């Protein structure tokens, strides 16, 4: 790597910029797909499994003729390429052994991936919607996260999982979860939350190369976000947050899409003379306590923005860290902006009232800025 991309964000004042780095503007989803390709190319023990990650179970095609059985000279072909095209085109280039469509069997598939990881391969599992984690939760909690510890360190579980989270797309209660804390709570598991195309690249590569089980959460609202991605390899250190903007009056802490909200709020408030510092957590387990405390020690005021429901959420955890280790820094109460303690509603007006919004963050900042 040319320099530490994990601490850069294009266009933010006061931060290193990437103007002279070779790279491309692309969507978050394209960065995800390209990074998967790069990692599949790099390590033959990496393979991907999930429901409809190819779709059509990888039919075969030659010169426009489509076959439902493997035939000589025919290449596999995808129908979907995964939800939101995360794995589009991969089966054509990597074949049916490495891009493996599965039945709708989250527990069986995740369990098999764990068994494969325990025996020398490096599987990646697409669980589709984040909500479906609970269908496979026993395998995640009891096998993926605990095998190393309960077997006395004999083994490792180099497994990567990903799924699409978040409200805001009308998917309603069972396809819109953001329960990060239900994963972060598990010792033995790591959880990362990219917030733009660059961090997708850096965190996905790092997750796949990591020897522990890592869950990468894709917030649906970010999937078409554009951003700059360097051509060269980018591997973030797991457990490091970054500054999206430096400021002096209030710290805004975000994760995944709420980092984007914080960034926009900071820009707006700048115009009215309030200087916000924006911290993007990037990793929720391990959690970068240092960046949280460093920022709060300077601004003395903090708003934590988290789309998860409020009880036992990441916002609660970060609040408790600040209250415990940064109490003397505080000049105002810690403010949490979460979703309410309800399931995600379907109706658009209700749904947008449910999610943290720029307005709610601005309101929270105003409550403490003159405190």
């Amino acid at each position: 790597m040319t320099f530490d991309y994990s601490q850069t964000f294009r266009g933010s004042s006061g931060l290193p910029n990437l103007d002279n780095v070779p790279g491309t503007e692309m969507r978050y989803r394209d960065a995800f797909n390209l990074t998967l390709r790069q990692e599949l190319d790099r390590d033959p023990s990496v393979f991907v499994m999930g429901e409809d990650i190819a779709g059509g179970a990888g039919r075969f095609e030659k010169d426009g003729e489509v076959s439902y059985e493997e035939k000589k000279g025919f290449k596999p072909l995808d129908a979907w390429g995964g939800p939101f095209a995360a794995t589009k085109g991969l089966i054509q280039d990597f074949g049916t052994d490495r891009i493996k469509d599965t039945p709708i069997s989250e527990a069986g598939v995740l369990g098999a991936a764990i068994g494969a990881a325990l025996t020398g391969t490096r599987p990646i599992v697409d669980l589709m919607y984040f909500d479906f984690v609970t269908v496979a939760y026993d395998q995640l909690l009891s096998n993926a996260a605990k095998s190393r510890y309960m077997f006395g360190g004999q083994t490792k579980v180099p497994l990567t999982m990903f799924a699409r989270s978040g409200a805001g797309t009308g998917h309603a209660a069972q396809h819109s979860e953001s329960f990060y804390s239900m994963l972060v709570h598990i010792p033995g598991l790591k959880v990362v939350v990219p917030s733009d195309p660059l961090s997708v690249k850096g965190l996905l590569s790092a997750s796949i190369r990591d020897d522990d089980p890592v869950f990468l959460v894709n917030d649906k609202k970010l999937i078409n976000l554009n951003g700059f991605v360097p051509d060269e390899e980018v591997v973030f250190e797991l457990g490091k947050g970054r500054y999206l903007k430096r400021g002096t009056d209030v710290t805004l802490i975000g994760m995944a899409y709420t980092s984007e909200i914080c960034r926009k709020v900071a820009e707006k408030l700048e115009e009215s003379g309030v200087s916000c510092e924006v911290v993007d957590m990037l990793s929720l387990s391990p959690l970068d306590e240092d960046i949280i405390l460093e920022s709060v020690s300077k601004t003395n005021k903090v708003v934590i923005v988290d789309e998860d429901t409020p009880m036992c959420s990441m916002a609660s955890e970060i609040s408790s860290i600040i209250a415990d280790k940064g109490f003397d820094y505080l000049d105002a109460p810690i403010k949490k902006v979460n979703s309410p303690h309800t399931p995600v509603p379907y109706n658009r007006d209700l749904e947008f009232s449910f999610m943290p919004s720029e307005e709610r963050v601005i309101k929270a900042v105003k409550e403490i800025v003159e405190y």
Partner: protein
Amino acid sequence: MEKEKLRWLFESMYRIRRFEETMLEQTFKGKSMGVTHSSDGQEAGPAGVCAHLTDKDWIGSTHRGHGHCIAKGLDTKKMMAEIFGKSTGQCKGKGGSMHIADFSKGMLGANAIVGASIPLAVGAALSSKYNGTENDSVGVAFFGDGATGQGVLHESMNLASIWKLPVIFVCENNHYAEATPVEYAVSIEDISDRAAAYSMPGVTADGMDVFDVYEVAGEAINRARKGEGPTLIELKTFRYHGHFHADDPKKYRTPEEDEKWKDRDCLKIFEEKVIANNSMDLDSIKKIKESIDAEMLDAVEFAEKSPMPNIEELYSDVYVKYKD
């Protein structure tokens, strides 16, 4: 059958029996730090299946896993030390009776969530197929009749079938899931009938006769090694003890039922057969027993004399690497 193989089968079964008896004695003396689940009575299953496996083959196991561990070649000293919670234990005293694993022996771990190790064996077989090593690395999923009520078994059998993986599903039907009789909890008489739903062969074997288990398992494992896919084997068997060390099975089983099964004890059947066909003599059987009896005393002594883990071990091995 070769003399060496015969000897191995008997040694394995007798070692399991004596380990379970010794482990229970020690549990009642307060030496185990938690619950233990004895597999005495079921020895022919692990022995007859694992006789066909090498260290490169993988097995998944259950809360009643001591027999699988022993048949897969784990060290009884380290197993006993693990149950005693000692630092010299197979898992440094951090797993206990229900979580004994040895990855160097192809043992993916005893697993205390009923049914949860089944997909791990499927995953091991997936690794083999991915690496093109099906011929010398198959996966065996051991589970009880209780696990047949778990959805993950269905998912695992379907995956193994559609992907034609080298897996053998071995259901040790000991007729009780905790205290619930199989007749109450399972809708069919022979669990092996369920194989038809996954278009794989299903066979029921006499789980008290190691020769029957050996034959059926050998066929299934050969098929797997040749790339012909999975098999479901049901072993009709019986655990002599209760569900866990302090469980009294008289609360839910009749003395007649226990007697009926003990009449067909796997060690007894083995001895009768080998004596009748002159393939082993009483003297060599006696010598094996003496040697294993002594091994158990050594295992207890080793466990007894081993140190406790350092308290710092609480924090180790949660991750390969977490924070710098």
